[in-house]
């Protein structure tokens, strides 16, 4: 497993559709948005695409080399994007795509992020061996270890405030 940097377009050229238009409902009291808000549609497994009006504020992409006891070796390319929604909330979207030839399927999830722990939870569900969840257990590897602190690997420094744990400590 390793974290070689890759460009977002390698991973995620389809989950987000953008319709560029000014947003008449932007709250001007909070000041202008980072850019004109756009109508976004995020692909989500098992559900209709998540619709929101906002802007991408940052993204990170990485690739993990995975292997299993059956001899399957390949990459899982992941793209994480954070969106600032017009109502001020933050939504994270994760797209993880396995390279061809792996017994795996892509994973797409999106969720509102209120706390850094919410983001960690989303990443735990969507990266690395999450793509192998679609593999029936009889044929799935038992030797995957993919619980490293991906957030640190991604190099993101998110202005999301203290974590729930930190709040309790205070």
């Amino acid at each position, binding site marked *: 497993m390793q974290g070689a940097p890759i460009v977002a377009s390698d991973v995620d050229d389809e989950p987000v559709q953008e319709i560029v238009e000014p947003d008449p409902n932007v709250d001007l009291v909070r000041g202008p948005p980072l850019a004109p808000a756009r109508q976004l549609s995020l692909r*989500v497994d098992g*559900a209709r*695409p998540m619709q929101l009006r906002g802007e991408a504020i940052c993204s990170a992409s990485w690739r993990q080399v995975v292997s299993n006891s059956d001899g399957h070796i390949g990459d899982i390319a992941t793209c994480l994007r954070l969106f600032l929604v017009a109502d001020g909330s933050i939504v994270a979207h994760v797209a993880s795509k396995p390279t061809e030839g792996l*017994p795996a399927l892509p994973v797409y999830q999106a969720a509102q992020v209120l706390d850094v722990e919410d983001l960690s939870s989303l990443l735990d569900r969507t990266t690395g061996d999450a793509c192998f969840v*679609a593999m029936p257990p009889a044929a799935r590897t038992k030797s995957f270890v993919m619980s490293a602190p991906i957030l640190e690997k991604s190099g993101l420094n998110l202005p999301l405030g203290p974590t729930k744990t930190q709040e309790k400590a205070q």
Partner: protein
Amino acid sequence: MSYPMNATDPAQMTPAPDAAPTMAPSSFRLSRPGKRPLTFHGSELAMAMSYTPELPYWYELNIYRTAEQKFVLALKLFFGSTDETDRSKAWEFDTLPEVFDTLESYDAADDVRIDCTAMEHLSAAELAARAYELGARVAAQRAHFGSIVGELFKELEAAGQPIN
């Protein structure tokens, strides 16, 4: 029992989705477990398939518009192994949102088969292991189905079909 749509080569199973909007209406006959086959005259609106050579099974989803302006959702589960029997389900709806709601609420755990033979001879530990394996299979089935449903919605949206 084997359904007539048994096939191992996905290229032979369904017309390409690109051709669907311009396809001339055709007659369809879809198998349904415990019911008469669903027959109708119409055209295919959309199709998605989760075929991956390395996976032992895959789903195929089809949405049709009938000549009566109703909508049919067909769900097929194919197995690479000849020891398994392919499965087919189909529903008819008045509107497309009902089709989408059914896709979102469908629980793929129903497609997991349980081997209950010789369960009475298993120890508590073996039963626990069976339960753990069953839970993993259910999670796999749901994740697999969720992946193809997300793909189908996204492609419908890209084609200009209002979804939400």
